[in-house]
């Protein structure tokens, strides 16, 4: 449930709000409906990981990945575009996960 909410909120907001808003979305969602901090982190991580993967692919597939194949060569990772996608998604996931974790922890603090 939390996973789905974060997924939808961040997907929609990404079109008009700054990139770090995914953390705020994950935070708010976890604060209200998060269960354990661990599960919240995983939900936040997975949701943003997937959202960023999908958004990146929406641009990259019609591009035959030519841009990502060039840009990946700027990074100290294997020079295949898919690795750049993984790094992108992981960074998004980490930000989302940390947002959700913070939300869940704060909720726990308020609960008694």
């Amino acid at each position, binding site marked *: 449930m939390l996973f789905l909410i974060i997924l939808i909120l961040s997907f929609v907001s990404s079109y008009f709000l700054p990139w770090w808003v995914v953390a705020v979305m994950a935070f708010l969602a976890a604060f209200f409906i998060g269960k354990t901090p661990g599960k919240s982190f995983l939900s936040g991580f997975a949701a943003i990981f997937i959202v960023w993967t999908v958004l990146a692919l929406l641009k990259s597939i019609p591009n035959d990945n030519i841009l990502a194949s060039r840009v990946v060569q700027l990074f100290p990772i294997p*020079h295949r575009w898919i690795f750049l996608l993984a790094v992108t998604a992981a960074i998004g996931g980490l930000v989302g996960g940390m947002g959700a974790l*913070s939300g869940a922890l704060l909720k726990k*603090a308020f609960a008694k």
Partner: protein
Amino acid sequence: MKFIKAFISIAITIVLIWLLGIKIGPVPPLGPFLNPSTGFWQNAESKHIVAAENLVLPGLLGKVIIRYDEHRIPHIFAENDHDLYYAQGYVTAHDRLWEMDIQTREAAGRLSEIIGPKALETDRYHRRMGMVYGAENTLRGTLKDPATKMMLMAYTEGVNGYIHSLTPKDYPIEFKLLDYKPEDWQPINCAYLVMLMSETLAGGSDQFAMTNDLKRFGAKTVDDLFPDYPFFEDPIIPAGTKWNFKPLPIPKPSAGFLAQMTARIKTKEIEPGVGSNNWAISGSKSATGYPILANDMHLNLTFPAIWYQVQMSSPTVNVYGVSFPGAPGVVVGYNQHISWGDTNVDADVLDWYQVKFKDKSKNEYWYNNQWVKVKKRVEVINVRSRKPVIDTVIYTHHGPVVYGDASEKPAEKYETVPIGDALRWVAHDESNEFMAIYLLNRGKNYNDYREALAYFGVPAQNFIFASNDNDIAITSNGKFPLKFKDQGKFVLDGSDPANDWHGWVPADQHPTVKNPSQGFVRSANESPTDTAYPYYINWRFEQYYRSKRIADKLTAMKNATVDSMRIMQMDNYSILAQDVLPTMLKYLDPSKMDNDQLKAFDIVKKWDKHYAAKSIGASIFNKWWGKFYDTIWRDNFDVKGIFLKAPSFDRTEKLLLTEPNSKWFDNVHTPLKENAADIVNLAFNSMVDEMVRKYGKPGEKWQWGDVKQTFINHLANLPGFGTGDFSAGGVGGVINALRNNNGPSWRMVVQMGPTVTGYGVFPGGESGNPGSFYYRDMFQTWKDGKLNELLFLKSVGESSERIKSTLTLSGK
């Protein structure tokens, strides 16, 4: 406790977001750069092309239709000239915004604003060379004429029309990588483009090194080793051409100059052939009976390319060719009446003057027997995340004192700039090169061409010309200062008015020839004229190798076609090798050689003198000659702490062919007395040793295309954004003068006739976006030595299968 945990988690999240949001060293801010909604993924262009698009832009007077062909070259059709240049600004910015930004920043000395203190010395150099001062003067000259003012202002509006339509996700990827925003385009930026070309093509100087040569070796030796006219030459204007004008009186050499020449008083490796070619044949030599014009301009090759192709049409003009991203109009190209192209003249238009200041305050300097006040210009250089740097530059009536004393000059940089000297540079003067472009684009015949050229000041170019009236012509054209012979070969005394420039060579007396009996005209940066021309333009030009090869080919040519021209542009035959190889081989004794030497000897003896990619002989000769040249001059000219200039290849040839026992062959560091034969042998053996060490036994690994490094980098040297090394033929001094990252930046052939047809290619693509399918779609064609037929639409409605999409712009 629970609250502490929660706050720690929140704090970590905030720090994480903050860290991801800042630029750390060369690493872009990862959050903004990688996130898919505003980061680099947004720069990925779709392969699905939108066939028709309409946009409303503020400032347009009417409707503009832009038709894009299969290489996404825009064909602009406007209802008036304002909208034409507006649209050119718009489409160019769409494809090349970052290139436009970074190039004008470089010229304006504003790189530190985005790069930080690392770029400070580069910025100071540009400021102190007077790039801003010169651009301000060029802009003033351009705005004086209503036509060019309209060009510049409309182009600027168009660029800004595009910039204002952008949100951060649309910024070109380099802005995202370097973490800055595009700023509004200013009309002066167009003038910076002119300054940049002047810097590249007319901003060098060997005056300082020559002065050091003079001090070290004396006038007699310098006269001998650095003659004012080369041993081998084949000038642009056919030798023996009569000059039927009354020249202005030539100024008298100053007393100081004469004294310098009659009294006693870390070489850089020179490589010939940095340069461009152009030629035109008359109808009598072509298959169609109409002239054919060819031009390949050699510059540093980059991604995005230095050129942008465009067709521009309005009720007053319909022209096709290449433009500079950031400047209005077509620089080189053709219309349905004329075609034209450029090579660089390399006239001596940049001189250094010694300045004697009254005292340490440097407020006054000695000139014409009195103290004269200097002017001071304050340059403020903004530096990213630092305080601005304020630099005061002293100007005498000559120009800026680029480095007043040693403390102002960065170590081991800009070694051609003498300390304490003022710079007189034609690029500082008010001018209006845009008028020349405006008129050439609309030119209909020979007279229009000559009229246009009179406006073109700097960098001086050999303008080649062909028309449907069956005229061909070439003019070495630009603002040439009126000088005494060799004025500016050495640093001049700035206190003597006799050393000042004395006016200009009149435009109608520039070296020029129309329809010569040889049936062709051509240039390859060689001497414009033989020694009979009354004016002094420079004491040295590019050597005759390419010039002679072109003349040899064209003299023999009959029934030439576009393809004959195209094949010539890829010609790798070395005149240098033709001149010297027989003599060099003569000095070798195969009976004393080991196996590797014998093999190399055998290969180079049979070599066809073409620098082809697969040629092994080319690699052997090239290294052999290089070692020969170095060995002769290094002992005398490579002196620690003194910046000297070594003699040319041409002078070295003369030494080899006519003075085999010259003292210059003797290595001053050995007790023996060496002659030409000794040095030829020494160079050969040392060449084989080095080649074997680097590439193994003589064989495939020795192929020229692999030995020579050829590559094209992105302007910011970003890995993955360029080509990497590729195998290719050519070398400095052959027509296909491709080496390292310097070579033909635009190859063009134009067949004149009832329908003028152009062919051309540059290494790269129209789009500067590495996420575009048009980023390098023309590279392979260029590398293969082929040309694309250029699509010239005679009217907006002309149908063509090559048109893939249409963009319609209209005003509010």
